[in-house]
């Protein structure tokens, strides 16, 4: 693609803009990189110059039974949330792809709006509502709340994939005598498989990092991010860096998996 009119290009301006981009990315990644570096640093109050290389924060974290419990809760919640939100998201994406009906705008708003509501408000509303039906303080409460904010991500990912599909594919299956269900099973789902897997990983990653709503509704069943919030409230501790690096690496692996599946899925060239 043409990147600007060559007659109108100034090397100095171009260089300055590029420098600015680099600085912006440095700003975005500085806290992430610092947390990675300091997770291996022996000092209790991290700063420069760096102390010695040490894995003591990882050992401290690994020796904390509450962290393990948090991790177990996080994984449990994450997996269940990913399955439910992807199923719901798939249904909504397919609905949007195939049907038009009165009130579709409202349907889509319900399907996509939840992540734009501030998490403190969602947290309070969820806590108040779930405690009325005796569900708060339970891992189930976190699952319910997380599906609300994760399903829109699943829907967006799968809807994007469906928009690459030729609608005549499904119709061809019908014409060849397939029932709607058979066409769903043999045409739509195989076509969407990479996006479905991608949605599973993306929603899991979102759930892994969500702390605010989980903090409101989880009670004693804290997930790992809620535990991190606890560390932040208590004494400042480099353990946060160790957990953060661990969670970051996990999330990145999920994301890379999702990317690979979305980019090079077996169905991606079947147009």
């Amino acid at each position: 693609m043409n990147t600007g009119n060559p007659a109108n290009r100034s090397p100095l301006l171009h260089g300055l803009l590029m420098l600015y981009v680099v600085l912006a990315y440095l700003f975005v990644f500085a806290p992430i990189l610092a947390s990675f570096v300091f997770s291996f640093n022996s000092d209790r109050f991290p700063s420069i110059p760096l102390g010695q290389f040490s894995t003591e924060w990882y050992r401290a974290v690994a020796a904390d039974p509450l962290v393990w419990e948090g991790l177990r809760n996080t994984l449990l919640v994450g997996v269940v949330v990913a399955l439910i939100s992807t199923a719901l998201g798939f249904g909504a994406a397919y609905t949007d792809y195939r049907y038009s009906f009165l009130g579709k705008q409202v349907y889509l708003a319900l399907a996509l709006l939840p992540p734009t509501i501030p998490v403190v408000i969602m947290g309070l509303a969820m806590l108040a509502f779930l405690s009325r039906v005796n569900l708060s303080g339970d891992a189930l409460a976190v699952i319910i709340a997380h599906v609300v904010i994760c399903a829109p991500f699943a829907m967006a990912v799968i809807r994007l994939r469906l928009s690459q599909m030729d609608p005549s594919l499904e119709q061809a299956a019908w014409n060849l005598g397939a029932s709607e269900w058979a066409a769903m099973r043999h045409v739509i789902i195989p076509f969407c498989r990479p996006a479905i897997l991608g949605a599973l990983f993306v929603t899991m990653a979102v759930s892994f990092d969500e702390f605010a709503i989980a903090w409101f509704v989880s009670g004693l069943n804290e997930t790992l991010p809620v535990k991190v919030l606890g560390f932040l409230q208590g004494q400042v501790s480099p353990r946060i860096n160790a957990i953060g690096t661990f969670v970051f690496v996990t999330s990145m692996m999920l994301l890379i998996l999702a990317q690979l599946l979305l980019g090079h899925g077996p169905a991606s060239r079947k147009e």
Partner: protein
Amino acid sequence: MRRRISAYGLTFSLPLLIWQLLFFVFPLVFLIALSFWTVRNFRMQPDFDTVNWTTMYGRAIFWQAYGTTLALATAAAALTSVLAFPCAYAIAFKLPNGARRWAIMLMVIPFFTSYLVRIYSWQVFLSDAGIINVMLGWIGLGPYGLLNTMGATLLGYVTLALPLVVLLQLFSLIFLDRTLIEAAHNMRCGRLRTVFAVVIPSARVGLVIAALFAFILSFGDFVSPIYLGGGDPTTLSILITDTTKSGQQWPRAAVIALTMIVTLMVVAFLSVRFAYRGRK
């Protein structure tokens, strides 16, 4: 396309609808009812009493928090937009396709890193013996009290919103009609003037929506104002967490939450109207 209502179609459409009605719409509506409930002897009971509204609205701290939150979120939206724009502009117009894809992918990574961890990391940078003050010390300056300031709160907000704002601006710029820019250049419109007279007005919808998201994110965030701003001056989000977590004053927290929702709706409505003003 078949359009009749069938069991098949409903199997796919209904689950999400039911889930979001039950666990998204209903809890939010329930907040309205809750705001009229009363608390006696640390127990909430259904009621229809405006006491929570009059109590909260009668408190100076509430209005001070409201003003602070509104001002900080507006400042964050403006600051983030201004900081993001040159970056989005350069990625959209100056990078070759391959590099642009990389740039976009890198900007997505922050969404999957813990915001809490990043805020803690900024504490390490900003504290009195932190990285920035040590570096300033090398050239004989400081130390400055950087942490627990409004500037630090804003830094947290920008950290939260910048990646999203860059991406949204970027998408509105990528899909811009490039012949407009070339036409401007051909008519000897200067570079800076092209940006302000052609690029920004054409991409206005995307730019305003991006700023709106920065506002929404900052308006509701309680982590940055507590852990970077030191909780003083207090914001509405801090007020909600405090009111909810300490004591059973959920009805009062509901009043704050509803006030925030209405404010957000008004801001969103005004922004969208501004974004589309003069368009068909």
